[in-house]
């Protein structure tokens, strides 16, 4: 059973999961942070308040680090389809490769082209154009999300294709049907909101950390810290409930188009009405039973069909070789939902503190907000595990098996590449995380630079890249 090919397949899958799992955190961070920076700069330009410029300059440094890590880890993805999944690439390339090309041309270049201006160019192009550059970068991240989710959703719910009888290639028939496939709108909304929510909790935790620190030192927290915390909590209050509704809609979409995935997420084996919702259990793929199950009667049907006697699918409806590994996604799904509920509670709790005027003075709430720093990212990763592991055993759902997608690469090469990636990723991205945490450990200062906006970017530029200022125009030199 476990011959070299099986192990190579397992390694190829693990390697892809590992590299994409590390990667996805950075674009999610960039999507949320770019939008936040655009909002901050817009507020600064319209209100003229120094605090928004301070926050902009504070977070743009984090952005430059996160974005850089996203670029280099993303480059790996663009080539890993070919190195590890060459059969998939050859068969699905006429569709997924084209969508990826559109992503590069409409999004990556836009982001990269204006990132330089955004980071280093404020005194060279003026405020208006600089704001436009920030907006271009932010819009670029959203366009990128759109294309990659169109591609991913097509793999989940393929439409608009024909299969070439001789080569087995997927031939595009209808590009609109390919892009706007049934799960795409739900996935796009769910992912974008997840990115916003992740960044809201990261920003909120940074604010909470500085307020706790000021309190320990007997100082009053600075205005930028209070403003960032308040903005982050507004975001949590507003976005968390919307995200839960979006997730519910996405779940119903999965029920309709990928019932086997849904049965595995729920740990249900037999299709039934009046289904309970399992809070805990250990699905056993061999005995076709979920052990130690603890459930609430009827709620499963209620959540999935919005009626008490609605019929929900069971894994026994599907042949054994078409069931996704329930023992993984049963848990990843529950962790995601639990984190989502926690984020909702924190958002509501912040409203209560706001009403009592204790938002900036409650150490307990600040500790909770600090502890929630990774909540959004963890939920996002669990969501991806659920949807991608839930797609198994297929790469293109129902049409192309994962086992038939892998490259003809020998096991030893797979082992070498896996080793390289694990070492490099842990070292590089671990260092990056360390640098980021240290950087966010420094408090943003009030009006730390000349309020004249012409001077501000220079200070930023010098801090980020000591010699970036240009000799020919160098106003500040």
């Amino acid at each position: 059973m476990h011959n070299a090919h099986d192990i190579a397949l397992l390694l190829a899958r693990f390697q892809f999961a590992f590299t994409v799992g590390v990667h996805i955190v950075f674009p999610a961070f960039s999507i949320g942070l770019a939008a936040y920076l655009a909002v901050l700069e817009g507020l600064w330009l319209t209100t003229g308040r120094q605090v928004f410029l301070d926050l902009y300059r504070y977070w743009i440094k984090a952005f430059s680090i996160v974005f850089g890590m996203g670029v280099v880890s993303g480059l790996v993805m663009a080539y890993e389809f070919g190195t590890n999944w060459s059969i998939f690439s050859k068969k699905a390339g006429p569709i997924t490769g084209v969508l990826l090309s559109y992503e590069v041309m409409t999004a990556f270049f836009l982001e990269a082209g204006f990132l330089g201006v955004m980071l280093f160019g404020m005194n060279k192009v003026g405020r208006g154009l600089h704001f436009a550059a920030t907006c271009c970068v932010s819009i670029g991240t959203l366009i990128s999300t759109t294309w990659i989710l169109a591609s991913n959703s097509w793999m989940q719910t393929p439409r608009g294709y024909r299969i070439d009888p001789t080569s087995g290639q997927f031939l595009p028939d209808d590009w609109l049907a390919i892009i706007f496939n049934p799960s795409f709108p739900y996935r796009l909304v769910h992912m974008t909101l997840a990115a916003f929510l992740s960044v809201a909790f990261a920003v909120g935790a940074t604010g909470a950390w500085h307020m706790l620190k000021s309190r320990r030192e007997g100082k009053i927290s600075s205005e930028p810290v209070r403003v960032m915390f308040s903005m982050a909590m507004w975001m949590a209050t507003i976005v968390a409930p919307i995200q839960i509704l979006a997730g519910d809609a996405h779940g119903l979409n999965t029920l309709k188009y990928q019932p086997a995935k849904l049965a595995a997420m729920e740990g249900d084996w037999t299709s039934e009405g009046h289904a309970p919702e399992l809070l805990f259990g250990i699905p056993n793929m061999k005995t076709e039973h979920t052990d130690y199950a603890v459930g609430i009667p009827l709620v499963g049907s209620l959540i999935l069909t919005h009626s008490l006697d609605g019929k929900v699918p069971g894994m026994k409806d599907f042949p054994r070789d078409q069931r996704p590994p329930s023992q993984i996604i049963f848990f990843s799904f529950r962790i995601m939902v639990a984190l989502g509920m926690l984020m909702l509670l924190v958002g509501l709790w912040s409203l209560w503190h706001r009403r009592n005027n204790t938002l900036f003075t409650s150490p307990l709430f600040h500790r909770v907000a600090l502890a929630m720093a990774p909540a959004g990212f963890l939920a996002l990763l669990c969501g991806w595990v659920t949807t991608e592991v839930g797609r198994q055993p297929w790469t293109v759902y129902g049409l192309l098996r994962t086992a038939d997608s892998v490259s003809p690469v020998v096991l030893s090469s797979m082992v070498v590449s896996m080793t390289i990636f694990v070492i490099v990723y842990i070292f590089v991205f671990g260092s990056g995380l360390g640098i980021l945490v240290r950087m966010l450990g420094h408090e943003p200062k009030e009006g730390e630079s000349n309020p004249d906006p012409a001077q501000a970017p220079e200070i930023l530029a010098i801090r980020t890249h000591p010699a970036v200022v240009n000799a020919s125009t160098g106003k500040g030199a």
Partner: protein
Amino acid sequence: MMDFAHWLPIIWGVILIAAISIYVVLDGFDLGIGMLFALERDRTRRDVMVSTIAPVWDGNETWMVLGGAVLYGVFPGAYATLLPAFYLPIIVMLASLIFRGVAFEFRVMTRGTVRERHWDFGFMAGSALAAFCQGTILGGVIQGVSVTDGAFSGSAFDWMTPFGILCGLSVMCGYALLGATWLVWRTTGQLEAACRHWAARLAVGLFAGIVAVSLWTPFLHEPYLHRWTDWPDILLVAPVPLLLVALGALMASALRKGHSRVPFLCALGWFFLCLTGLGITIWPYAVPPSLTLWDVSSPPSSQFFQLVGTAIMLPIILTYTIYSYRVFRGKVSETDGYH
């Protein structure tokens, strides 16, 4: 329609060569500057070197993502054959580019600690290794890939031949030359003078590399030899070596006379000629010596849809890329960061 379907892979072949060429020269000088860290130890001058590319390297690397994506979408047969064939050098190249890419930020963020030195080293070694891997992959494509039934059927180290290693070293030398001439253009004083000195030596090294690769290549496969020696093909290809020598002479004199931009443009010219020569040599193969562009291309519907987007987007991309370069134009000097 039949005719158009025949022409589509040719159009895409030209676009792909253009995208690769743009990547090679743009990221070429970035990687070259990384390698020149080995010759320049002074932190202030290293900062200047990095500053000339910090606002643009990210866009430069995006051309490589485009190359990968075009190969994936338009020539999936080549993507699915070449990437498994060059599995190890590609993985090492990607890992090297990770070190190089994050070092831009990390070396400044860790300033004053022992880690700063590590990231400087990562910037240099990552650049050098990425350049070497790109060269061996290029050499590997020229010398050909074993294919059975449209899939790679060779072994993991087929690319590791004397020819592949020669190509790897030549590309390292070439990128370092691009980096040095870029710095001649974009910097002043001591650094500029040092770069003139390095550029002259690197140009000699690259010229030797080009001559060696050019003389070796025709003997790898029979069709290559015919392409460069048969009448009347020779009329088409003869200008390539002649222009190469002419540009070399121009570069040498420009470096001596103190021109700031001409040496870089000459180095670009060399790369353009080499890539054109490469295209002429392996034409019409996408995966020499067995798969042609038509064997590996996706259906016309995919190629056409992507062509529409490319026709619209590429001019826009080029416009704002040029804009972004113009924003940061001019010489960068050592004193700028320290006022």
